[in-house]
């Protein structure tokens, strides 16, 4: 559920197909998100899942899986 919703958000922000967003996809390396894309994605997940992502933790969110785990741990 979290993953599907996250897929939608990331696909929308990066202008790609949802299928391209996999658990192991690295946001920056594979999906080519730049720093502002990452900010957009973080702001969306904060709103959607009611979590707060401290700025210092943003860097450690590398793959889609990392983001899913963060949401699960902080809900």
């Amino acid at each position: 559920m979290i993953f599907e919703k996250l897929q939608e958000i990331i696909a929308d922000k990066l202008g790609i197909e949802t299928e391209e967003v996999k658990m192991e996809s690295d946001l920056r390396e594979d999906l080519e998100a730049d720093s502002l894309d990452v900010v957009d994605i973080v702001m969306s997940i904060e709103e959607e899942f009611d979590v707060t992502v401290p700025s210092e933790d943003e860097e450690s969110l590398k793959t889609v899986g990392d983001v899913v785990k963060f949401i699960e741990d902080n809900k």
Partner: protein
Amino acid sequence: MIGVKISGVGSAKPKNSVSNDDLSKVVDTSDTWILTRTGIKSRYISDGETTTSLAVRAAKKALADANITADMLDMIIVATLTPDQLMPSAACLVQKELGANNATAFDISAACSGFIFASKIARDAIRTGSNKKVLVIGVEILSKILNWKDRNTCVLFGDGAGAVVYESSAEDNILNIYTGSDGSRGSVLTLDGFPINNCLVEKEPNDYFLKMNGSEVYKFATSIVPICIENVLKGTNIEIQDIDHIVLHQANIRILDTVTTKIGLVKGDLFENLSEYGNTSAASIPIALDEAKVDFKKGEKVLLVGFGGGLTWGSILLEW
């Protein structure tokens, strides 16, 4: 209360337009990188023209547009981060060049919100009866405070000036102004001043480079703009759908695009000239206003929104 209207607008830019390709020879970057990430194609850079000179050229156009002479001005406010001198102020130097001998002249420092804040001072001064004709100028030569070895900042900014004449009027066209600031978040966008180096202490010289945490500034800008719009409409019976033209501070196309989506508009609804000018800080909104106004019709509702270092922010709702 006395009404306030905009009676004249003008702008000026340096003669050199520097393209992304030109910059790729100076720093490790490319046209594609800059264009896709920022929306900027070129920017105007002074090859020696001073802040005062740019400000005066914009001011003269605004005075002509307002059909008044400089000696009719009773106040001149210049919003700038990059005056030629700290003293005399840019406003005093402008006064000298214009021959505006009846004006009280001073600068204000509010980064990219400078024009909005200076407009608020002008409007309040006229409304209370203290002043009748106020010249507000936003001017920057940001190229002199950029680290030209830092490709993350030097590609984003440009030089220019915009000027507006506010006058007392029977009709009140400045419907509302909203402003705010938060110094506790100021460290994300900085420009250092003189270190304390005197008979008692010795400090290392500063670099005088603009420094920015891009992600934090982007987060701030995209969240504050909807707040600025909501707050300036509060108390009026006007809604976002009634606004005919929205002019944001021209910082970065990513901010404009995100804000467009957030407030339920369509791409292209927000005025854009940053592709030609880059981010000109305090000059951005009056320059944009000068260009956007060709499409304005009398009676239309216009929204101006500024946001920037400080952190500072503000918006003006006006009837053209």
